[in-house]
């Protein structure tokens, strides 16, 4: 078995330790004897639709996000859309998450048109509005009610349409918009979230869910042998406590 990961715009959208997510996917596959490889796909590169089981896209600053949005639509959108429809896993964080929606309306400048892989829109309420920053804990029905921990830092407010389910409900922090207690968006195997950086290292249940779903398309039902997750559990628990103490 092998897991083929494609990292979209690793040098452009890499703001918040997004590399941690790639490291976790690779290690948790390899620790189980599954070959894992990661291919970087950059600005201007064409995308081979059959070559990957999982796409990852991170977050970036406004200007980098705009460059990525244009390239995504012009060169990669069609392939990515067909892949998502075929059940390939897409994980998008922060800026990347916003680009999977219909559009992102920045504080100034034109709208960034997204790929529409997720039924959601994002609006930045203006330069004087506060950014939603801090430790966040959500409870995810997708993962049987398990908590997912991370850190969020975003100006844009995201609202889900009827076609997208939230990744979870906010227990601590802001989530999609700081109002409706939803966080993230999911549709088939497309996952978007504001939880950035070491999201996957600290949330092994979510990581394994992604690996299983990614392998499932080519290998059918896959059972992942359990790993020794004591260190992960400690880091997860301490992040929950940290968020609760704020």
């Amino acid at each position: 078995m092998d897991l083929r990961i494609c990292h979209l715009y690793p040098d452009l959208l890499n703001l918040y330790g997004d590399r941690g997510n790639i490291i976790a996917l690779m290690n948790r596959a390899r620790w189980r004897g599954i070959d894992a490889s990661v291919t970087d796909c950059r600005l201007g590169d064409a995308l081979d639709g059959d070559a990957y089981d999982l796409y990852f896209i991170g977050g970036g600053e406004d200007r980098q996000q705009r460059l990525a949005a244009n390239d995504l639509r012009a060169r990669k959108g069609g392939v990515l859309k067909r892949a998502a429809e075929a059940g390939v896993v897409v994980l998008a964080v922060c800026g990347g998450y916003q680009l999977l929606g219909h559009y992102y309306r920045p504080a100034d400048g034109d709208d960034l048109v997204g790929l529409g892989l997720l039924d959601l829109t994002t609006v930045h309420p203006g330069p004087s509005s506060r950014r939603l920053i801090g430790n966040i804990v959500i409870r995810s029905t997708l993962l049987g009610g398990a908590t997912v921990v991370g850190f969020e830092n975003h100006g844009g407010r995201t609202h889900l349409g009827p076609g997208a389910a939230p990744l979870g409900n906010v227990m601590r922090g802001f989530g999609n918009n700081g109002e409706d207690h939803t966080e993230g968006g999911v549709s088939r195997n497309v996952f978007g979230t504001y939880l950035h950086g070491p999201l996957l290292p600290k949330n092994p249940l979510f990581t394994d869910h992604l690996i299983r779903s990614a392998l499932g398309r080519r290998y059918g039902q896959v059972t992942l042998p359990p790993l020794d997750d004591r260190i992960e559990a400690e880091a997860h628990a301490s992040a929950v406590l940290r968020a609760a103490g704020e």
Partner: protein
Amino acid sequence: MPGRVARGIAPDVVRILAARLPSGTIVVTGTNGKTTTARLISHILRGAGFSSVHNRAGANLAAGIAAALLQHATFGGRIRGDIGIFEVDEATLPIVQPSLQPRAVVLTNLFRDQLDRYGEIDIVAGRWETALSNDAGAVVIFNADDPLVASVATRTTGRRVAFGIEDDSCSLGTLEHAADARYCYRCGVPYEYRAVYFGHMGVYRCPQCGTTRPSPAVAAHEVEARGLEGSAFTLMTPRGSARVKTQLPGAYNLHNVLAAATCCLEMGVALPPIVEGIGTFAPAFGRAERVRVNGHEAVLLLAKNPAGFNEVLRTVLRDTGQATVLIAINDLTADGRDISWLWDVDFEMLAGRIRRAIVTGIRAHDMDLRLKHAGVPDETRAVATDLAQAFDLAMKSTDGRRLYVLPTYTAMLQLRKILQQRGLVAGFWED
């Protein structure tokens, strides 16, 4: 805080008091190295006969500057001192610039250090640009090797002097994961690098608009790195060259030394006292400071962002084959509350090359998980959430050899306090 009160009483106090310094003021700003750079400038100038007013111990907000000036003010409103040296946060520069009207502004570097506090790096650069274009009176002393700093500096209207490293043997070869400002400030596309010194520092060029690194007027040639003992290099300046030795380790400190040398040259100091001052300058606390505990040595190496951390790790690995390290990670406001950056540090370089890693601090468990993923085996790692206990455990694990302590900013302050209570280090800012 007296400074805050004074500013409340007379908003112009900083402007009025600063104007009474006969040799004017110098402002040092940037993400990394401003404390070291400001202290080194002060040290060199003292050797050259100046007496300086200097804000200290992280009091580098506007209120801290007012406090420093007030401390040196007489009842008659005179200031005891010739020259002011103020280190200010990246975001504070535009606020203090108009009242200080500095003679020189030193720009060390811009890293994505505390994004949750300051917003995005481009925004900070934009504010610098505005602040500096409104003031043509100050000479801008800037790091040519930092593309973001250089692109800001080259848009200012006054005089400017660039410093940088001119030695390709310092190059790491490839850009680190920690590199932040790797995109052209104009076009947004990634730069091409001929040499990478650390982080996004190096000799770069934009493939789209052709922006290149400015040629430094003051530069370090023929660099000889000596691990924790510091380094030696040939300092080339418009006023001649000299072989220089510094006790400050790592490539990042070369930039601090160059910044201070350039600034002092601009203040009219001759080359020999500058070379002398660099040689006699000892590291500030937490910046490669050495502590003796029961006859054994601990070295404190502040590690507050990915590029700095990588450089510290390389310094440790160069120093010894099987090091014992104590890593202390806090996530308080002064550290940056978001510790995602730990995943941009290349801890993978430690795998198989350290004897023991003890992790501590508020985010000890995050750090432990990071090391696990970096390939540092379970039997090499230990977690001790209490800082004092962690320090004792780490000292015991060294087998009499040197201990390397790698703390974030507030963890360093806490550790420093523990060592002070034990009588192992002197109080703060003893100079």
